Structure formats: C-alpha cells, structure tokens
C-alpha cells in the first residue's frame, strides 16, 4: 500500500518536472514553472523518506538523514540568497558540482556495498569472486554514474573558479590528446574490471575516481572563461545523466526520468546557447576564439581613423537630444557601472530626454546578463527593449550611448561573410543620428575582431573605464 503511494508520488514528481521545465521555457510562466518542479521534488523526497521500503524493510537512520537535509537546506538557501546577481552562473556551477559529487558518492557507496566492506582476507577466502554473481550491467551503471558524476563535479568546480576569477585559463599544446588518453584509460579500466574482475578491483576502482576528476579538470581548464555558461550547461546535462544512472541502479523512476529529462533538455539547451552566439559546440570546447581575446587584441587600431569626443560635448549632445538609447555590454558589467548608469538615465529623464536600453540577447557573458544587471540597479523593466524592438527604435533615436559593448554592435556580422560572427543578429545602432562609444581602448571584445563601427563618421569614442566615464559624464550633465 505505502509502496503504491510512493510509486504515485514518483509519477507525480516526473510529471511536474516535465511540466515545470516546459513552463520555464516561456517568460510568462517561468517562475511558476520553477515552483511546480520544486513542489514535485518535495513530494518525491518526502515520499522516499517515509514510504520507501526494500524487501519489506523501511529506511533507517532518520537522525542522519534529517540533519543532512537541514544542513544542506540552510547552507543552500543562504548561498542562493546571498549571491550577487551577476555571480549567478558560478552559483549554478557550484550547485551542479554538488549534484555530480552526490551521484559519484552514490556509486562509491554502492560499489563498497557490493564488496561487503572490502577486506583482502575475506576477499581471498571467497576465492576473489564475491561479485561473480553480479551482472555486468549493474557494474556498468555504477561506473557510468561514477565517471560522469566525477567529471561533472571537478569540471564544475573549475568553471566556478574561473568565473570567480580564481582560476586562470590554462592550455598547453597537446592537451586535447592528453584528455583523450585519460578518458580512454578510464574506459579501459572500467571494462577491465567488469570483464576480468581482478584481485585488485578496489584499487582500480579508486583509480577511476581519480582519473575522472583529473579529466574534468583538464577538460574545462583550457576553455575561455567567457565560455563558461556553455560549459556549465553541458556539465549540467552530464549530471542529469549521472542521476539517471542512479535511477537505473535503484530501479527508481523519478530519478531515471528526471535525470534523462535534464540530460536531453540540457544538451539541446547547450546547443541553443552556442547558436545564439553563432558558434558550434565543438568550437566552444576546442576554444578556437573564446580563449584568444588577448592575443588578437593587437590587431585593433588598423581600421582607419576614429574621432574622440570630450566629456562636455557628450554631455551637451545627450542633454539636448529627444531620445537616447543606451546599449550596455560586457564592459558595463565588469566595471560594475549599472548603478551610475541608472543615475545618468534618471538625470537625463529629468531634463526631458527619453531614455531607453537596447538589450542584445548575448550581450555580456551569460544569457540574460544585461537584464539581470540592470534589474539589480532598479532600472524599470519597460525601459529594456529587446533586439527587434530596439532595432526599430534606433531610426528615431538621436544619440546611442554604447557602454562597454562591442561584438553585439559590430556591423561585420551583417556585412562581412568572412567574419567569425557573420550571421549573428546585431543591434543596428548606425540607424541613429549619433553614436557615442565608451570603452577603455580600441581593443576588440570577446570575439577578438575589429569593429568598423568605431571608424564611421557618425561615431565618436569616449575612452575610459565605464564607471569612471559615467561618473564624469553625469557630473557634466548635471552642470548643464
């Protein structure tokens, strides 16, 4: 009876995951979708604690279970509540790593369980064969969960460190080959254990853990820090598969379906993310331009002549404009200039200037980066125009103020088929009357390519760190 109820709880859980994820992919229902999935998860967890039984035996160790749950909940909530908006992707990465580690630990415990508390003497007395009765499939699944979980764990930790700025990009020649070797070695050992079941099984088993962790590290290390959102999404789908392995192991449908759902949806999402940046997944993973920012930087100032604008001129042009559009980009985010930007917006509005923001979907370093950033600074949602809308409004705009954005306003995406960003939709700022660009130098942005926009007669440059420049600009505007 209770077991039947548990089956139903699990079924409910699976359905809420699907419905929740579906709702999450639509802006209107997204928030409720998250809650729906969370409710399903809650039911599934409670059901497991109180209803689960194996061969008639209920679960024990309630003390341990609940203390772990409480500890996890408190820490998790605090971390999630405290994190700065712009540090969200690293938070996701951290949590993803926890999930991966959890899956790996389950595999470890199950393996130890199968080994009945490994002890060489009993092992030998059993004729080295105490899992001869075990079918290869179970072993295979334990190994899969272990390897994928561990890779996801260590990879996520590295991704987290990179986004934190604690770990720097690190690549050496032939790294891809080493990675491949590690992976193959891993598979070979696993196969060896499953088929030959040698005396040293436990040793080999722990070697697999080590190698997997190593692989995760080497896999993520060389990828450019800016590509981390894509990598996190990929590792996310890995963890999903690892969770599904657990589902196989315990013949537990909610784990199986939840894991597979995330595995499939996550893989597609990863591809969609790459597509939004006009790149392929392999391109991101091999890092053909993501890591090369600095190297390509020197190519900057060859495109022609550009003109600068003084702070006071910029202030005058903007104060007497009818409509100003602000294009925020990655530079605004690193300079943490969103609050001062909002100040400027309010000051201009007080002077009767209409001010709006043009938001490119991949401006910044994570999808939705600009929305999150500006929401943090209390910019009202109605002022944020999506790309299509913004492109229509540029025609009637007097001044476009570009703050640390580069690739997302690069006309090469439309006009130059040889450009690596060719085909990416951009903000067509040239349709406005004036364009003022704030950045620190003529160096290129993420894609490492030059931007002809900066050399056009309409455009004038306002060099300097975004925060500093905006502060000065604000003072000038106020003094008019």
């Amino acid at each position: 009876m209770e077991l039947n109820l548990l089956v139903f709880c699990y079924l409910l859980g699976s359905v809420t995951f699907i419905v929740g994820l579906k709702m999450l992919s639509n802006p209107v229902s997204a928030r409720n979708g998250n809650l729906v999935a969370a409710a399903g998860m809650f039911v599934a967890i409670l059901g497991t604690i109180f209803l689960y039984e194996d061969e008639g035996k209920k679960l024990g160790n309630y003390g341990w279970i609940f203390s772990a749950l409480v500890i996890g909940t408190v820490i998790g909530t605090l971390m999630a509540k405290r994190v700065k908006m712009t540090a969200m992707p690293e938070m996701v990465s951290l949590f993803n790593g926890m999930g991966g580690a959890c899956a790996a630990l389950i595999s470890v415990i199950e393996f130890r369980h199968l080994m009945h508390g490994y002890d060489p003497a009993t092992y030998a007395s059993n004729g080295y064969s105490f899992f001869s009765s075990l079918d290869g499939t179970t072993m295979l699944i334990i190994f899969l969960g272990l390897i994928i979980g561990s890779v996801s764990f260590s990879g996520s930790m590295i991704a987290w460190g990179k986004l934190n700025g604690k770990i720097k990009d690190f690549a050496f020649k032939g790294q891809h080959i080493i990675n491949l070797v590690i992976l193959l070695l891993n598979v070979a050992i696993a196969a060896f254990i499953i088929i030959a079941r040698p005396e040293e099984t436990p040793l080999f088993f722990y070697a697999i853990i080590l190698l997997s962790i190593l692989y995760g590290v080497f896999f993520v290390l060389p990828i450019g820090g800016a590509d981390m959102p894509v990598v996190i999404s990929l590792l996310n789908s890995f963890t999903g598969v690892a969770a599904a392995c657990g589902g196989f192991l315990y013949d537990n449908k909610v784990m199986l379906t939840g894991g597979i759902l995330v595995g499939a949806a996550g893989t597609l999402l990863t591809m969609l993310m790459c597509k939004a940046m006009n790149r392929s997944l392999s391109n991101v993973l091999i890092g053909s331009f993501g890591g090369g920012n600095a190297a390509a930087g020197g190519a900057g100032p060859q495109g022609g002549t550009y003109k600068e604008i003084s702070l006071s001129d910029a202030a005058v042009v903007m104060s007497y404009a009818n409509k100003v559009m602000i294009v925020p980009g990655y530079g605004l985010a690193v300079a943490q200039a969103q609050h001062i930007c909002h100040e400027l917006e309010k000051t201009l509005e007080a002077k009767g200037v209409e001010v709006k923001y043009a938001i490119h979907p991949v401006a910044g370093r994570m999808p939705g980066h600009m929305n999150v950033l500006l929401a943090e600074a209390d910019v009202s949602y109605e002022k944020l125009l999506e790309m299509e809308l913004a492109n229509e409004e540029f025609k009637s705009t007097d001044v476009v103020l570009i703050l640390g954005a580069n690739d997302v306003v690069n006309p090469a995406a439309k006009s130059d088929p040889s450009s690596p960003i060719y085909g990416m939709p951009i903000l067509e700022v040239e349709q406005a009357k004036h364009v003022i660009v704030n950045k620190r130098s003529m160096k290129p942005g993420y894609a490492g390519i030059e931007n002809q926009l900066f050399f056009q007669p309409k455009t004038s440059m306002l060099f300097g760190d975004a925060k500093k420049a905006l502060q000065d600009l604000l003072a000038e505007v106020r003094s008019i």
Partner: protein
Amino acid sequence: MNQILNWIAAHQEMAYIVILMIFVGIEIIGKVPSVLHTPLMSGANAIHGVVIIGAIIVMGQAEEGNIVALVLGFLAVILGTLNVVGGFVVTDRMLEMFKKKK
C-alpha cells in the same frame, strides 16, 4: 549485438521510458528565448538534484556500525540537498528579476 538485444528486451520498459523522455526533453525546450537560457539551465540543474533520492536511500539503508557508509551517505545527502534547494532558490531569484515590474 546479441547481448544488446537481450539487454533491451530485458529492460524493455526502461528503454521506452528513456527514449520517450529524450524526445520530451528535446521537444519541450523548443524555441526558448535566449534571455531565459540562464534560468532554464538553473532550473534544469535543480531538477537533476533528484539524485538526492538515491542518496537518501543509501543513507537510510546503511547499517548502524558502518561508519564509512554513514559518513559518505551523510555527505551525499548534504550535497544533494545543496543541489536541490540552492538550485530552486537561485532560479527563483533569477526569474524574479525578469518579471515585469508594473
């Protein structure tokens, strides 16, 4: 080859569930607007926290004396909870940012 067929036949239902779930996973994402990529990733991240159920089972089945199993299980449940709770809370916070303030 033969073995694979055997395996599929023995786990027939599982195979169906997995394949159908893959279709569902791919189809429901469909054409998600790119601003939602981060929250969606985060929500999916919270969902795979369902692995915690495995951790709870392992923990609940560990024998009294088996300290290693208890400690590892304890750790697994904490990690799983972090994944689930942190994942859903962070997603909610993100989505709060996106809602239209009217």
